[in-house]
């Protein structure tokens, strides 16, 4: 019988437990405070940058032949003649009620359009993230635990390539081979009635998901690999091996737990890259997601819509980041004991 690997001093006396809860509460409150402050800062940045655009939004919208009176009328209708501060507050308080205004082009509600587009973008990102974590954990551990073998080196080299490949080039290559040559999956697009046809929707998301997962997986494998190399060199692993544990079983029992902490952090760091990746991939596969909406609105200079989309994306990413930070705080063993 092998001895227990770690001796955790489990003396959670009542006062210590209370103070831990207090510390956690303070940490969580801090994070939420930072979240509110950054959301305000981001909304100001987005609003002001787009508000002081060269080129008057109303004049562009009215067209080159509009008279000054027509432009003024349009400005009034869009509320652009009000003081900037009023416009900003109106926009932010609207956003709190999930009302981001109406598109300047077709008058449709920006928020409901974003909701529609997220039905494509969110499944894409979540699936790619899940796949990459599931693939990268075992692969990275194998590559790290056996980093001097040929397959250790091979995995290392492949991840180098995976990180350097531009997602849009990977997507185009997959389309060429799988969709154009083999004709297995659809080349581009998404069913017009979205998830009403689940099989069709999933079919059109397979290639994009794989494409998005490739650079994510490569990045994660690199990370897990170097973490595993460090772990294997650690003294407690040497102790465990001396007690008769094999490296795989040590990694399975303890490595996963030790890797979970930085993994939460690294997934948080990948979020911004995930957004960029999904926008690129929506362009490659002509998927009607949030990225396509953003590109179209920027092209049309539909400021209300661009503002709303940017704010929504930023908020989602920041909220998820803070949520991950809070999870990180909760599982961080340094905040667990009595000290």
């Amino acid at each position: 019988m092998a001895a227990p690997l770690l001796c955790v001093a489990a003396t959670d006396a009542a006062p210590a437990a209370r103070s831990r809860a207090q510390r956690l509460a303070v940490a969580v409150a801090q994070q939420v405070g930072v979240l509110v402050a950054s959301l305000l800062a981001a909304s100001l940045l987005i609003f002001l940058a787009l508000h002081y655009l060269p080129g008057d939004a109303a004049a562009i919208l009215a067209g080159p032949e509009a008279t000054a009176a027509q432009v003024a009328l349009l400005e009034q209708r869009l509320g652009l003649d009000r003081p900037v501060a009023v416009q900003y507050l109106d926009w932010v308080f609207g956003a709190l009620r999930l009302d981001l205004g109406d598109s300047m082009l077709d008058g449709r509600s920006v928020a409901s359009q974003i909701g529609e587009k997220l039905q494509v973008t969110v499944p894409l990102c979540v699936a790619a993230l899940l796949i990459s974590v599931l693939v990268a954990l075992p692969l990275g551990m194998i590559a790290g635990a056996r980093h001097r073998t040929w397959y250790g080196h091979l995995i290392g080299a492949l991840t180098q390539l995976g990180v350097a490949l531009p997602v849009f080039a990977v997507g185009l290559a997959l389309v060429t081979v799988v969709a154009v040559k083999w004709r297995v999956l659809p080349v581009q697009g998404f069913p017009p009635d979205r998830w009403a046809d689940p099989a069709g929707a999933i079919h059109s998301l397979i290639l994009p998901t794989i494409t998005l997962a490739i650079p994510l997986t490569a990045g994660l494998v690199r990370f897990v690999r170097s973490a595993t190399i460090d772990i294997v060199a650690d003294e407690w692993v040497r102790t465990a091996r001396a007690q008769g544990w094999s490296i795989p079983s040590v990694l399975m029992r303890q490595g996963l737990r030790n890797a979970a902490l930085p993994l939460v952090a690294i997934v948080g760091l990948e979020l911004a890259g995930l957004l960029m990746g999904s926008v690129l991939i929506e362009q490659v596969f002509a998927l009607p997601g949030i990225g396509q909406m953003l590109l179209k609105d920027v092209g049309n200079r539909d400021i209300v819509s661009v503002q709303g989309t940017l704010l929504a994306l930023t908020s989602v990413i920041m909220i998820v980041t803070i949520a991950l930070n809070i999870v990180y705080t909760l599982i961080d063993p340094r905040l667990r004991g009595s000290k």
Partner: protein
Amino acid sequence: MIALLRNPSGLVGVLLVAVVVAAALTSLLWTPHDPLIVDPAAGWLAPSASHLLGTDALGRDSFSALLVGAQVTLGSALLATAVAAALGLPLAAIIELTPPMLSAFLQRFVDIMIAFPTLILAVILVTSFGSSTWTAAVAVGLGASVVVARTVAPELRRARSSDYALLATAAGASSGRIMLHHVLPNAGSTIVVRLTQILAGSALAEAGLSYLGFGTPTPTPSWGRTLAEMQPQIMTRPEVLLAPALCIVIVVLGFNLLGDGLRDILDPRTRRSTP
């Protein structure tokens, strides 16, 4: 330098980057054809001695366009990295030098700004100032500056708590002087490695932004936009997409491997662990 060439990653990295630099320098002096000359009669020519990689829909020479594209890629990657260094390094120093309360706040700020997507910055800047190679590069640089600050700050802390920094304090040096003369040079290797990785990331980001139309505007050749222009051909002649895609891979892989090689030879920790 010799140590770098002896390191396998370093050697391949130096070679790949050298190819791209050579292409950019060559294109400054000479290209087989003017990449901007449009000749609709010569559209979609197959590769030949005159047109090494054939021509595009408008009859422009693809090989010349790729050579000029190397300028755009290198130029914007260098600018983005310079912006990242110019903002990120002082930010890291400030995080280290300010009192704990402010420093904790700054750190949280950096944490959240890392989550602020470069893409959104680029969209804001491009919508405000119009799309150009330089706007995109500045957006990428701004996004990367917080990454620089985040990764360099711990390194500065390590150097600041070292014995030589303590000695300088005892000798009466100010904290600013210690930062400039003792800490920064000693954190130099980490900074160099990090900036090389940022070069790779910037090249990739420029290609991505140009592909989306937020980067280099037409007609200046850029690898990312060339890919976007070629995309409609995917059903009929997918091979034309290969060259620009490979160019992007070469430059990103080159800078990444160069960074790995530099890390191996500069970082005493990995130097010890590699045989």
